[in-house]
């Protein structure tokens, strides 16, 4: 191996992120595996694209930890909009409350489980935030698909009375990410607290 490559280093932030996303018992071995592959194979063959490869590998760890929760959060939002479209009601407060608690509970649980497994508050907060981000994308895609199917005046009126399109495409996704960060951190703090007590 070229000695220049043996000292090549991946982006520091990506290495730090990887370590956050691993259990303490795996931090050395897994980050070492990626560094070895990066220096021996990826840098010599891909050159400037090596850092992109490394970031993609790190993203795969983050994706695995958060995509399931993201789908749960996004589906909850889509189901809510589906109900509002197909079964409109005069008072949406019960549905809004149920959805809020589902999202708060989902984000906190995602943060708790990730922090418990990785023994890191940052891992919990990051996993829940990423799950919320995925959930936002899922909900935007789902709601756009619903709009493509149902866009008659009566349905659009029903949507307006339940919050409107701005809420569906902007307010809710932004709020979801904020809740993900806040409740994920809260869940992660609970996990660390529980680990200390137990």
């Amino acid at each position, binding site marked *: *191996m070229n000695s220049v490559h*043996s000292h090549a280093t991946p982006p520091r932030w990506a290495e730090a992120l990887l370590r956050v996303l691993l259990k303490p018992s*795996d931090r*050395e*071995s*897994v*980050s*070492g*595996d*990626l*560094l*070895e*592959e990066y*220096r*021996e*194979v990826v840098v010599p063959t891909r050159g400037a694209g090596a850092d992109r490869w490394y970031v*993609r*590998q790190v993203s*795969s*760890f983050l*994706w*695995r930890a958060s995509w399931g929760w993201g789908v749960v959060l996004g589906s909850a939002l889509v189901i809510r909009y589906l109900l509002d479209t197909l079964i409109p009601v005069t008072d949406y407060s019960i549905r809004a409350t149920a959805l809020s608690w589902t999202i708060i509970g989902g984000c906190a649980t995602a943060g708790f489980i990730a922090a418990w497994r990785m023994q890191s508050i940052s891992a919990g907060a990051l996993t829940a935030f990423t799950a919320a981000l995925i959930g936002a994308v899922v909900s935007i895609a789902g709601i756009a698909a619903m709009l493509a199917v149902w866009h008659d005046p009566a349905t659009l009126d029903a949507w307006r009375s339940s919050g409107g399109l701005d809420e569906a495409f902007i307010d809710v996704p932004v709020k979801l990410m904020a809740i993900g960060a806040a409740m994920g951190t809260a869940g992660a703090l609970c996990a660390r607290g529980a680990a200390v007590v137990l």
Partner: protein
Amino acid sequence: MADVLGAFEQAVLLEVLRLGDQAYGRAIFQAVQSRLERDLAAGAVHATLERLERKGLVCSRLGPGNSVRGGRARRYYRVQPAGIRALDAARRTLENIWRGVKWSVTKARTV
């Protein structure tokens, strides 16, 4: 009863078996990639090894690292007897599925 293995789990477990004493994370990642002839995410192989270890099909130990990996330890894996039984069961299942099929699937599709 032996565990039911998915196709990717079988691929990982078989590479651990083939690599023998040299079965550590990166070597397994490379071997599976080469066997399946596609780019893989390291996270997928790591998650599978973790799952196989949780099921008791492989065990692992830490070994020394080298300068290329910044001195970081290597985790070496070894297939356990339960892993061999699970591979056997997976192979028997596949053979049962294919038993009696005497023609090529490509030909059968065009009939």
